[in-house]
């Protein structure tokens, strides 16, 4: 029975990784990366690795998206005066 849950979560992780790569806009990609982090944590729990799941949750669901979103906001704010000028 525990194999079925591994297969389901593996396929979800593969689909989410594809979605993260196909999504070209960085802000929306951060959203998909956050969901990928949560799904990876579920996969690690299913593969009996709770420590790694905790680490992925802590890093993937709050830290990485926050860094990417701050970067997008800085570059979007930097671009604004030029856009008005254009």
């Amino acid at each position, binding site marked *: 029975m*525990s*194999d079925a849950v*591994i*297969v389901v979560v*593996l*396929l979800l*992780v*593969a689909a989410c*990784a*594809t979605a*993260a*790569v*196909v999504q*070209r*806009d*960085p802000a929306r*990609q*951060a959203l998909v*990366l956050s969901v*990928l982090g949560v799904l*990876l944590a579920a*996969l*690690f729990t299913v*593969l*009996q*690795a*709770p*420590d*790694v799941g905790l*680490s*992925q949750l802590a*890093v*993937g669901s709050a*830290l*990485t998206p926050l*860094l*990417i979103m701050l*970067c*997008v906001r*800085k*570059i979007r704010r*930097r671009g604004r005066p*030029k856009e008005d000028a254009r």
Partner: protein
Amino acid sequence: MHILPYLVAAYVFVTGCYGLATSRNLIHAVGCLAVCQSATYVLLLAVGYRDGATAPVFSDIAPGSRPVVDPVVQALTLTDIVVGATVTALLLALVLQIAKRHGTVDPDELRELRG
């Protein structure tokens, strides 16, 4: 079933590399690199798995009462995740510097800026 996790890890890695190569925005490229790294987590943990086993953490079960999964790969993956996060942060800092100095984050436009 017995090689599906390895194939998923390989697929996620190749997808991440494709995204990295064809990216038109450096922040998107850093995101694709994070996807590539998550492929290594999946592969490492799939190598260490044992059927019907549980985690080698004995805070709530007696040691030796149940088969356990390989802890060495888990320690490797844990270090991989934390280093991956800091490398992502450093790359994003570099992207901010490029945006500040060259005014663009599109790698193709960067290539045309000579000197």
